[in-house]
């Protein structure tokens, strides 16, 4: 594999980590959804590039699905939900954006320190890709715990999925099962957005899941 191909692959993977950081500092809903669309765009380009350099045509399907569903359909649906619910501004972070970013940097350092020594045998491509993928997964988790709003949590979860796609395509020759599962998880995201957000809306006039805690079944 020539050096240029590797460099481009790393460019996309590193770009994905960068976009994950951008997700962390968004302070408006609309911006958040747009950045998520960018996230999906980067992951789909990365997968397409992997398909090209690994000569694995079936990966193009994964790329196309990621592009169509996550970069277009879901962001559009989310925009409609946001408009309908009137929650353009409500990001409502649990801790300050600054602290979240610092924690994010720590997580990226952690995943690089964990992955690079371990995957020494796994070939250059898988090595860096896995370190980047773990960073994206951890940043997604960070986003899920540092936001109170249901829409941002769903976006955090979908960014975790993007990280997993990156990892799966980086592992050379992983069978089609993964692609099925990835397509499957996209379906999950759709169902969840549809079912849950609308149900939550129906009952509470708010998608802030903090209000849900009032309804805990457990009385002291």
């Amino acid at each position, binding site marked *: 594999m020539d050096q240029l191909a590797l460099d481009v692959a790393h460019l996309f993977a590193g770009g994905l980590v960068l976009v994950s950081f951008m997700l962390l500092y968004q302070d408006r809903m609309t911006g958040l959804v747009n950045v998520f669309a960018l996230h999906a765009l980067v992951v789909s380009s990365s997968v397409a590039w992997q398909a090209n350099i690994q000569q694995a045509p079936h990966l193009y399907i994964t790329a196309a699905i990621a592009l169509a569903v996550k970069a277009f359909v879901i962001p559009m649906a989310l925009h409609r939900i946001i408009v309908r619910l009137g929650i353009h501004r409500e990001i409502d972070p649990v801790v300050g954006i600054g602290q979240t970013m610092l924690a994010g940097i720590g997580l990226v350092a952690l995943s690089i320190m*964990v*992955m690079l*020594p*371990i*995957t020494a*045998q*796994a070939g250059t491509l*898988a090595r860096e890709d*896995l370190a980047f*993928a*773990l960073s994206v*997964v951890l940043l997604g*988790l960070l986003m*899920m715990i540092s936001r109170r709003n*249901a829409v941002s*949590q769903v976006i955090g*979860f979908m960014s*975790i*999925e993007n990280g*997993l796609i990156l*990892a*799966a395509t980086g*592992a*050379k*020759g*992983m*069978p089609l*099962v*993964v692609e*099925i*599962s990835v397509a*499957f*998880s996209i379906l*999950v995201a759709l*169902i*969840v957005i549809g*079912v*849950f957000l609308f*149900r*939550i809306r129906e*009952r*509470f006039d708010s998608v802030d*899941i903090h209000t*849900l*805690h*009032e*309804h*805990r*079944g*457990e*009385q002291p």
Partner: protein
Amino acid sequence: MTDLGSFIVGAVLVIPVVSAALLALLPDDRTTAWLNATAAFLTFISAAVLFLARPSPGRYLIVDDLNVVFIVLSTFVGFTTSVFSASYIAHELETGRLTPLYLRFYHAMYQTLMFGMNLALLSNNVGLMWVAVELSTLTTVLMVGIYRTPAALEAAWKYFLLGSVGIALALFGTILVYLAAHSVVGEGLDAMAWDVLVQNAPQFDPALLNLSFVFLLLGYGTKVGLVPLHAWLPDAHAEGPTPISAVLSGLLLNVALFAVLRFKSIMSANSGALAPGPLMVSLGLLSVIFASFMLYRRTDIKRMFAYSSIEHMGIITFAFGMGGPLANFAGLLHMTLHSLTKSAIFFCVGHIAQVKGTQHMPDIRGLTVSHPVLGWGLVFGVAAIGGLPPMGIFMTEFLIVTTTFARYPVLAVVLGLSLLVALGALLLRLNGLSFGDPHGSAEPAKASFVPIFAHFALVFVAGIWLPPALVIWFQHVANLLG
């Protein structure tokens, strides 16, 4: 024989799919509940035949000595739960908590869940198993939220978030396992097949395996409900329909544990890798301690038994973590008996909650007077799950504690004390629920008692006499687990 075996494996998977489609399409009627039960029964019969005829392992599916135990148990409880569900659902329709449309959805989801669990147990491919576990998570999320009350929605949302994060971590672990395998086995499907993985595990890179096991244990451990990853479990049990609580406790937790066991055997086959035992022992013990103390402050009856499930999954994980033929044997048997007992308890609890119109324990009193069968059923169930002799769970807990005592006395003392704490909490609550002056509605329950009695009879008999064939089979599987 091989052909019959493949046919049967096909049946175990196809029957739930076809009936899910049928149940989604058929107009809402009382008959659909019985169609559901019939489908579950046929699946159970097919699964039982797998003991006799088994196909040679394929690229995607495998039947071996370990999973055949799980699959028969799982389809059996799936069948009895569907019988219970028929009478439970009839009551929910009468009271209007479920509309006919939701009922259709419920039945279709029930069969889809059965399909997901059977596929997870039968799969010979780590990726396929992951997809199946994800499918069963999804269906249960939708069913937990089916009542659409604020509490049910919160429970479903919480379950979805924690469950999918868990499953995401498990996928990362799965990818790492593939990476460890593909440099030895070569690319493609072989590097994801269980039988190939276990055979070649000694040559895998230990560092990659270690990292993958951490992710897999945390990921699938979330689904097992191990403390500190258990937060979804009590809510999901308490707010969903009771048949789903029974299936969650009795089956889905086992499926997740089965996944952990499969990966554990890969880990133990590799001498350079981290020993998986201590990790499982500590998570298991932590769950037992935590859950047994949490049992004291519960006021919701289903929530209380959900904590009891956390406790028992902890015991089972502990036993498998200890390893060795005796502990593995006890773990397997405990898992089987816990599934049977806990689902029967949920059958009782479901009817009790329907009759009394509440799950709030202080409002339920004197059940043995107002509803003798359900009341005494609950007494029997709690005695069994708490580990009182002569029921089967006493025997397995005794085995686990004694075999631990021989190796790590301190752990055995801690485990034994927590079991006593849990027993105390359960008996305390049971006293209030079952005895004293009856409180609330005394209407006779329109219950289906057959599944309850069938389960309790099995648990009781298992405590006194185990069929030798079963003992030999479990010993054999226990040796395989290492």
